[in-house]
């Protein structure tokens, strides 16, 4: 069956258990918000789903095939992973950074194809960086660098996008623009975020982790309530719905 399916995932960093039997699935076209407090296992789950981290136990199936049976390039052509942070030491241009997203696609003698160039241009335009394509990545602001990194993930052309806090450093204008781009993405998007309103508004499904386990998995209206906020996020908060939009208002 088409999708990114995972079951019984267990992962550890030293003695600390990061994932403790996590299961679920992301289907084509899904918009899934990955929520949970710090250290709940969000990043570890994203890393396991793209093969960057090999879980101690459990399986990840990409369209029915186990992830470890595929080459890294095969996985990267299907699953694009945007890590939470990255640091560029050398002054690559923005276009060169975005072109890195084309790595899993064949490039005879290392030269980019027309398809590569088109993908890079489309991705640069999508994140509003076309005018900065020749600027050094080291000269950019934090938000601009974040958009360049997201453009790299878009240029990858993968049907599954795994994004770790893609909007955290962005101003309001670009945050909204990126969310529109993600809404138009033809594949599936799994987006880890601390912004509950954003997740509830933009994602048809929320996957909530707590202590490395799935605390809830379902539509925002079914999942996001005061009991969950108290149990998982340890805050007293109300969930308001205004014009069909969710607002989480924390008290105290």
């Amino acid at each position: 069956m088409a999708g990114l399916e995972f079951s019984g995932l267990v992962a550890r960093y030293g003695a600390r258990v990061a994932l403790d039997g996590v299961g679920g699935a992301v289907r084509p076209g899904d918009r899934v918000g990955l929520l949970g407090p710090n250290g709940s296992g969000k990043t570890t789950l994203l890393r396991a789903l793209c093969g960057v981290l090999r879980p101690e136990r459990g399986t990840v199936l990409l369209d029915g095939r186990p992830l470890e049976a595929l080459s890294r390039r095969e996985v990267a052509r299907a699953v694009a992973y945007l890590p939470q942070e990255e640091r560029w030491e050398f002054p690559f241009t923005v276009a060169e950074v975005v072109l890195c997203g084309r790595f899993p696609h064949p490039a005879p003698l290392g030269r980019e194809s027309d398809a590569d160039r088109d993908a890079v241009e489309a991705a640069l335009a999508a994140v509003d960086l076309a005018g900065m394509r020749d600027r050094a990545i080291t000269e950019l602001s934090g938000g601009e660098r974040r958009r360049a990194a997201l453009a790299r993930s878009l240029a990858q052309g993968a049907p599954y996008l795994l994004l770790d806090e893609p909007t955290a450093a962005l101003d309001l204008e670009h945050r909204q623009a990126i969310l529109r781009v993600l809404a138009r993405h033809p594949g599936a998007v799994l987006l880890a975020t601390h912004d509950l309103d954003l997740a509830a508004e933009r994602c048809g499904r929320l996957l909530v982790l707590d202590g490395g386990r799935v605390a809830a998995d379902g539509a925002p209206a079914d999942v996001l309530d005061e009991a969950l906020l108290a149990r998982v996020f340890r805050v007293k908060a109300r969930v308001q719905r205004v014009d069909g939009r969710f607002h989480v208002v924390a008290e105290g």
Partner: protein
Amino acid sequence: MSSPRARVLLGAALFCVAAALLAPWLGPGLDAGSPADAFILWQLRLPRVLLAAAAGAGLAVAGVVFQSILRNPLATPYTLGVSSGAALAIVLFLVAGLDARLPGHFGRPAVGMAGALLAIGVTYRAARVRGQLPAPTLLLAGVTLTYVFSALIVAVQYTATPEDAALILRWLVGSVESGLGYLPPVVIGVVLVPALAALLPLGRAFNALGGGEEAAQGVGVDAAGVARRGYLFASILVGAIVAFTGPIGFVGLIVPHCLRLLGAVDNRALLPAAALAGAGFLVLCDGFTRLVFGGRLPVGVVTQLLGGPFFLALLLREKRRLY
């Protein structure tokens, strides 16, 4: 490949060719009809130019490789202990008198490569944390190892005979005057060609590694595999070069940085450009020692004398723009 990168690559190629054509004629003038001068040209200067070219190309490429994998502009064969590991192995080999006993001096590059690989192996093992290789730990381990190896070299030197001690001292400064004719450039070439064949195709992977291991893995790069291949080939290259020239400093640091400042940050262009410019740079430095010092000053001194101030000037001019 866009034009600034293509321009740097073309410029590096022209620089390399010009240096190779010019260098044999630098130094005391040669008379075309004299057999003695013909001997100087064909048996002394030309092998020297070829050795400088091969060594410069290899050291510059090794610099790019270490810097790319570690994402650290200061990573070189020195900071990782690779040069000093090879140097210690060669010093022990020379003092043991094995060089003269083995035919054709083929033992030397083998010992140099073994020393370099041993050093990178120890650095790698020491720095490895839970399957990851954090750059700061790796650099710390490498620098520490360099100190240990350097101390051991000094210890060997102090206990050696005066003749051996003088030989070691001269070799340690770094020189392309091997006295072995065409053998060193041929042997280094035999290592250089497969090493370049293995390293040049890594340009795209090195670019992706620029944003960190995790970002590179996210686009499908086998970060650990690329690092292993890079360390292996760059280290044997350095080992083979050091065996004949001694540790020549600075080429692996300044050549890649100059090229980056000129616009070749993309490793698909930087790797070949570093090979060409590194070759040209060392050939010119060696020509300069003949021209100014009659060839008495080893090239290792000149690379640092010329390269240091030039690099500082470039850094002062460009650092605000780029780093």
